């Protein structure tokens, strides 16, 4: 991993840099599995090695650029970076040892999370959608906002025309299995998007757009956030707090499951919508790139 990063720094051929970055992301995903973060690794593999590599390549294609030779030796940045590194290493020495079960991170709220009050075996899903539901709503909104920003930046008057199969099935499995195994809305969303993106790479973006048209993607963008917030409002209407799932059903545990399920569907919808929209925007930009250059 360190080797690929060092190569990244030296290389000026941006194509090679991006491919190396994909390899780096995959290695990072492997490290994350070793650290027991299976949900995170799944996301990193789909996002880092899949979606962002494709996006970077798309942007590179639009920019047709090769990195210029730096005008001066990078001594100052090197000095800044190294001194930052030294300060950080010094600071890190004060942190708890690796895998120390008595370190503060394992003692605060986490034991309560692990007691499984909501009876969802995958604790990551339970914390994401239930205990920290407000955070997740905020983050889904951030993703949505980024999608809107990209639409604003890359909008074309020209009507854009716009992709899945075995991977999408896998994504659905990831989505609905999220309560029990590794998986959930964010992972499923990016896997759907990665599936579509690869489908588009193989059969062309136009075929993809026929399977999932633009209007559907744009609706998904907003519908996901609305669904998430809607679950919150439903809790409110049924006499609980915002994003309180216990009131969603007569049986509180069943209510939790129901709340988490719909929240995850909302997350997956927005995330896959935004990823696809971004990809479409970059893909359709290409056709029009020539004329805008004058």
């Amino acid at each position, binding site marked *: 991993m360190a080797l690929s990063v060092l190569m990244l720094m030296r290389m000026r051929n941006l194509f090679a840099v991006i491919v190396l970055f994909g390899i780096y992301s995959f290695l990072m995903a492997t490290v994350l599995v070793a650290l027991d973060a299976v949900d995170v690794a799944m996301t990193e593999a789909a996002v880092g090695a899949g979606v962002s590599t494709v996006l970077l390549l798309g942007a590179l294609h639009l920019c047709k650029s090769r990195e210029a030779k730096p005008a001066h030796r990078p001594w100052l940045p090197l000095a800044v970076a190294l001194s930052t590194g030294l300060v950080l290493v010094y600071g890190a020495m004060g942190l708890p040892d690796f895998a120390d079960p008595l370190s503060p991170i394992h003692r605060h709220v986490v034991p309560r999370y692990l007691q499984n009050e909501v009876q969802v075996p995958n*604790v990551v899903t339970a914390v994401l959608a239930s205990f920290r539901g407000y955070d997740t709503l905020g983050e889904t909104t951030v993703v949505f906002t980024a999608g809107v920003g990209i639409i604003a930046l890359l909008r074309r008057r020209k009507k854009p025309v716009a992709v899945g199969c075995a991977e999408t099935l896998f994504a659905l499995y990831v989505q609905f299995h999220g309560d029990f195994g590794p998986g959930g809305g964010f992972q499923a969303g990016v896997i759907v998007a990665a599936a579509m993106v690869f489908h588009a790479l193989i059969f062309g973006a136009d075929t993809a757009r026929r399977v999932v048209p633009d209007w559907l993607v744009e609706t998904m963008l907003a519908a996901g956030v609305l669904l998430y917030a809607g679950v919150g409002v439903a809790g409110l209407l049924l006499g609980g707090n915002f994003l309180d799932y216990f009131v969603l059903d007569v049986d509180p545990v069943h209510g939790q499951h129901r709340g988490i399920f719909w929240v995850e569907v909302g997350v997956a919808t927005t995330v896959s919508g935004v990823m696809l929209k971004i990809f479409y925007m970059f893909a359709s930009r290409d056709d029009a790139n020539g004329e805008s250059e004058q």
Partner: protein
Amino acid sequence: MLEHFSHIVTVFLLVAGLFIIVARGNLIKKLVGLSILQTSVYLLYIAPGKLLGGTAPILAPQFSIYSNPLPHVLILTAIVVGVATLALGLALAVRIREAYGSIEEDEILALDRAEDPA
């Protein structure tokens, strides 16, 4: 030293990312650097959550030690938000290229100065 190995790897990645952002003028290269810096933050969060002999935090009767799920949740969302912001940055780079014909910082600054000598 060995018990801080994960921190040292994290710091190395962070410094490498920072160096790329500061020292390289190409906007796409800068964004790659920013992504590397970001992955170092993933490690910073995830690594302390690991417990030796622990398993992924998916409850099952045959296990009793689980790694800490909270950082996983935080980073999971951070990755997805990260790729969305990366795409936003790339979109900006594409627009800059269309406006200036270049994504090299030096050339863009030179063009700016030529337009506005003040």
